[in-house]
């Protein structure tokens, strides 16, 4: 029910590692665009997968401020707390 930022980060990393093109050494501080070489469409599609696992919608305007995996995890946790 109430996931922590660490839980959500771990889930994001697990989802990303299912994609063989993603580097194996990613962590919460990895930058999504620079370190994972995702283009804007790939970011949106991957966020959609996370949304489904966590039953949350991340508005696209929030994505603009997100750099790292931990940023995304923070954003999702605050959305889930109804912010």
């Amino acid at each position, binding site marked *: 029910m109430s996931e922590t930022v660490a839980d959500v980060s771990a889930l994001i990393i697990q989802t990303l590692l299912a994609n063989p093109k993603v580097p194996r050494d990613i962590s919460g501080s990895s930058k999504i665009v620079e370190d994972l070489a995702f283009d804007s469409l790939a970011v949106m599609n991957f966020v959609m997968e996370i949304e489904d696992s966590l039953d949350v919608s991340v508005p*696209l305007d929030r994505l603009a401020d997100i750099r790292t995996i931990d940023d995304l995890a923070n954003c999702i946790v605050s959305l889930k707390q109804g912010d």
Partner: protein
Amino acid sequence: MSIFTKYEPLARSLAAVTNGGGRNPFSVVIDHPVSSTVGVIEGRETLLFGTNNYLGLSQSEAAIDAAIDTLRTHGVGTTGSRIANGTQGLHRQLEERIAAFFRRRHCMVFSTGYQANLGMISALAGKDDYLLLDADSHASIYDGSRLSQAQVIRFRHNDPEDLHKRLRRLDGTPGAKLIVVEGIYSMMGDVVPMAEFAAVKRETGAWLLADEAHSVGVMGEHGRGVAEACGVEDDVDFVVGTFSKSLGTVGGYCVSDQDGLDLIRLCSRPYMFTASLPPDVIAATMAALSELEQQPELRHRLMDNARRLHAGLNAIGLRTGPQASPVVSVVLDEVAQAVQFWNRLLDLGVYVNLSLPPATPDQHPLLRTSVMATHDAAQIDQAIEIFATVAREIGAGH
């Protein structure tokens, strides 16, 4: 550091497409059209299978005559915005014609379809509202959502159940919810399940905007698009469209039964801060609309041609979308192969669109091929033959 440094990756991608002596697919020049279906490219007559001129009306004699007559009486431009000095009697007349065609109370005409989406979406969805966009939406829809202050949520392409789930998550949040879908999607030619989306809209109390850019003049008994074909026009609150495809000219519009549409004229920046359509374009558009209305056989021929092209490309072992529609895209695996395929087609006299990721769904490169009502069977068969030759040459398909 140059102001262009940030585009170095783009420059490298472009170089990868053109190295090996290939053409730049983004700067093909059609020297001049010979007819709606043939143009001169690199000095050679080339079959055009990559336009949005679905009914061939860009070359309509009636539209050309109407434009010339109107140039003589009205001049070449308006030099002003719709809300200042740029509305002439013709603009009003065009809006009435478009509204009557769609059997709607109101119509707003914009200078392009891009601006119609930008202008409607940004003005309808305010700060406390939600926009729900199909994941494969056209750039003009995404850009409109960025110009709006609304929260933007994407749902899976053509998936009403996924939309429903995302709307349920918003249960109890204040603010209007505006769903945006397209009629026919321009990359793969796939058709929206409009009745199912209309049901979600009714159940959740959301609003529905349909961009029928590629489907007006193409689908529905009277050519009003997918909403007409599915019998759910009453559920679509706003229809956006363009004159630049089946009508063969340029310009965009929104029709609606909502009286509020008149207020949008005073707050939609892409409507207010640009010059209005020139008079000859309006006259040509109205003439083309008359042809669209009076010649339903154009639509029937278009769909016959779509089926012929779709069946032919599948028969030679190429992979396309599942539905026969005026856009038939051949799906390839590798960008390099797609580039080579596209170059050889043009060498042999067939022009199609090369569409590369990330502008395509699923990261696959596409040869986006489109038919017209004015193609004859021999032209379609010849194009399929050339596709087969190139596929054999480079070992594509099965």
